[in-house]
């Protein structure tokens, strides 16, 4: 079925070509993914090695981003952190999206008890200030990367549940759903083949916004000392470490990780719009 892939490639090219911003977003995304994948190999210095340069030295030709208090090269640490931060975000959002999406879709479609249970779960989560809840979960389960992922996933569930449930309960009355029943689709098959594919467009926007939020969340937890422990390289920790030095004039320690963090969030937000165009055939002509 090479023609299908050709068509997909064509649409990709079209969507990307139509809007220069989406081109920028894709390129940036590609850059981040590349960094995440091959970062360790291209980083000039070992991210964990101390005293590869003079501590607290400003950006220079040898160290583009300068060095931190332990003499570690900040550029290398930023590059290495990409893998961790992106990894956490992807994993958290992935789990959240799949579990929340499925729960919401089932709840919106079947209604009744399924809807009530899922609704209560979602309400419970939403009752807490989400960041505090995340803090609580990590504190309770332990300070590991895995737990950051779980915590981030849990606090994002309500968003996916809400979107999926709303879309699904509208779609269950659509004509093509009834038509699909007549074509022999059982209720479950209907959900997976007809309802869920059609709720993907609004979900993908949510996903990509969430990615930015999840990165921020992980960075935030690390910033306050929960989650990632030193000496691991992670944008949040690096901003935390650099925060104390801003007053004394060593601005580069917090700025560069912060800037890259901001760029990553910006990139995912832009990506959300482009992804929706890619996934929703109606937006194309």
């Amino acid at each position, binding site marked *: 079925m090479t023609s299908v892939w050709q068509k997909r490639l064509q649409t990709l090219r079209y969507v990307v070509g139509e809007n220069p911003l989406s081109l920028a977003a894709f390129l940036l995304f590609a850059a981040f993914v590349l960094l995440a994948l091959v970062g360790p190999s291209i980083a000039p210095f070992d991210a964990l090695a101390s005293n590869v340069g003079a501590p607290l030295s400003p950006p220079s030709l040898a160290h583009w981003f300068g060095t931190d208090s332990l003499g570690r090269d900040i550029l290398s640490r930023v590059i290495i952190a990409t893998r961790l931060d992106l990894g956490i975000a992807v994993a958290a959002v992935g789990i959240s999206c799949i579990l929340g999406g499925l729960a919401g879709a089932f709840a919106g479609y079947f209604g009744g008890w399924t809807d009530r249970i899922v609704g209560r779960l979602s309400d419970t989560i939403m009752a807490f200030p989400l960041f505090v809840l995340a803090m609580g979960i990590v504190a309770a389960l332990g300070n590991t990367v895995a737990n950051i992922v779980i915590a981030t996933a849990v606090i994002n569930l309500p968003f996916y549940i809400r979107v999926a449930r709303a879309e699904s309960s509208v779609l269950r009355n*659509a*004509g*093509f759903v*009834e*038509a*699909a*029943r*007549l*074509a*022999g*689709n*059982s*209720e479950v*098959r209907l959900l997976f*083949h*007809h309802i869920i*594919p*059609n709720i993907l467009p609004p979900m993908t926007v949510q996903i990509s916004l969430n990615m930015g939020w999840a990165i921020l969340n992980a960075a935030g937890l690390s910033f306050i000392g929960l989650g990632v422990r030193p000496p691991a390289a992670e944008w949040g920790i690096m901003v935390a470490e650099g925060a104390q030095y801003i007053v004394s004039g060593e601005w580069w320690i917090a700025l560069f990780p912060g800037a890259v963090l901001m760029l990553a969030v910006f990139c995912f937000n832009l990506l959300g719009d482009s992804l929706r165009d890619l996934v929703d*055939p*109606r937006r194309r002509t």
Partner: protein
Amino acid sequence: MSQLLEAIDLVKRFPVRVKGRKKLLHAVDGLNFHIDAGETVGLVGESGCGKSTLVRLLTRTLDITDGHVRFRGQGIGLIAARAMADHPLRREIQMVFQDPTDSLNPRYTARQTIAEAVCLLTDTRGTAAIDSAVEEAAAHVGLPPELLDRYPHQLSGGQKARVGIARAIVVKPRLLVLDEPTAALDVSVQAVILQLLDRLKREMNMSFLFVSHDLNVVRLLCDRVMVMYLGQIVETGPAREVFARPLHPYTRALIASLPGGHGNDADLLVGGDPQSPIDPDAHRCRLFGRCPRGAERCETQFPPLREISRGRSAACHFVAPTEGDVYVDAALALHQIDVDPARRATVATEFERLASMATLVQAVPLPDDSLPAPQYRP
């Protein structure tokens, strides 16, 4: 067993809340009818009469409240709507929807939409066999094969309608229900799709149940027509005859309101709102209050649907077999001409037409001694 589908005392009630009290909406209220193999039956009624509900009861996408539905002798009324998708009879009853745009999954190409039914409801397997079935159905509905790989938003209204029809017929159902298949289309496209349906009706050996609010369309395409009002069937008969000689006051009103000067203005419904389908009065005719013929009996006694003459039924106290009907039945028997109910109804209508011509002749006063023109010449 030539009856393909039979509905017996079919009932569907929806629970509703009116001003905080629980009540029942009688959407379909005790229907009795049948559809024979190879027949095209029209179902006519205004919006809100329950036709859409009835259609969903028959295609089993909605559970029935009471009564029976039999398909080829087998009871299908008790099959839960949710379980129907997996039932072997699913492929035998298919439907074409009113809004072609709404009834197509926007993420499926036309080919995928049509192929899905083949994959799920038939034993056809393998890309080649499935594609061939899809293309055959597309050819039947006049959809060019190039359009099969397009998405719904890339197709015109008429093309989408064709996809909807192709999907329904690809599994070769015995009964095809069409729920106002042209209502959402432009007038010019409507004519084309109706011609297509007419051709399909003649080419494929399917029974059609054609639901419409447009009596003109039903008259042209259908063998028999059922007229529905507020959840009940008020008249049935061969389509041409019901149109030419409507019996029930509601049918007469429908025809009188058609543009083109059919029927009598005296037949139009008199003012007043239709009765509510919520907890209706069981001892009163549903048309009472709007019927130009209403009398005391209509308010106290419910008129059941009964056979007026062979092939014609009506639910009204004031419709009775005419002398013409009785005469035709007796004369056909005398001449030993055996005709089925539909043909008998047509003969009766033609006879009425000739009778009215004879009345015109009788009305001319002739001198008492007038003789007919001599014919026999020795």
